[in-house]
């Protein structure tokens, strides 16, 4: 799959919330987009991600 612009291999489909946890993300401070669609936080437990997906995880940083 394409994750934050980089190709990574997802050997099997995974629940989004588990994927984020494995990657070390705190779900309360991020937003997730899969195939250019925003996934609401309430959907993290029900969303399955696939190796064919394009995913972006973003957070806030300092900026003017």
């Amino acid at each position: 799959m394409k994750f934050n612009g980089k190709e990574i291999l997802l050997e099997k489909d995974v629940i989004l919330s588990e994927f984020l946890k494995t990657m070390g993300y705190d779900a309360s401070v991020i937003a997730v987009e899969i195939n250019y669609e925003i996934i609401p936080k309430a959907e993290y437990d029900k969303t399955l991600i696939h190796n064919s997906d394009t995913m972006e995880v973003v957070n806030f940083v300092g900026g003017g």
Partner: protein
Amino acid sequence: MNTDKLIIGKKEFNSRFILGSGKFSLEMTKTVIENAEIEMATLALRRANNAGSENILNYIPKGITLLPNTSGARNAQEAVRIARLAREIGCGDFVKVEVIHDSKYLLPDNYETAKATEMLAKENFIVMPYMYPDLNAARDMVNAGAAAIMPLGAPIGSNKGLLTKDFIKILIDEISLPIIVDAGIGRPSQACEAMEMGCSAVMANTAVATAKNVALMARAFKLAIEAGRSAYLAGLGRVLDYKAEASSPLTDFLQD
């Protein structure tokens, strides 16, 4: 009690200083916010590549209204995408629309900015467009549903001050929304001048971040903005050209 409130959308603010949070260390962010006594700070959105690292939200005191910007957006669609993602993080509906595709001068594209403003206002964002101070474009922003107008004083990060002063004054006179100078303000005296002429607020980032003592400079900006606001409310004294008027009663006993 302070009855002079800044109102953006339906939200009231006592502080008229909006701080940009870029270029500070995370620890310094908190110190600067406390010294500036701000109630609103901008943030940017970026790919979260360092999972588990410290998040800036932990360094911004509760109660501060967050104003995510759409920096990096090169057109209206990208700005809308960034704004939607920012709102999904869950820090409110405010957004500073910033659309730039000129990497040398970083000047905003007013046309794309107006388009993004319209799309986001329809999605109930409280939209604060960053723009070049052009009256016609500012009217487009108003019609698009903007909650405030953020004209630049000088190019982003330049600390050059109010180069566009006369055009900002036209916006103050003709646009009924809050006019907030954003970008270019380099000194507290320039922030004060913007407030004296009737701006509703001033946003600054680089001027504070590149000072030798950022905490003290944050304080200086707070005081300058308050001074400028008081001066505006007081109404500036009149100016005499090529003549004088004594401030002291003339000592008439010397005349006899």
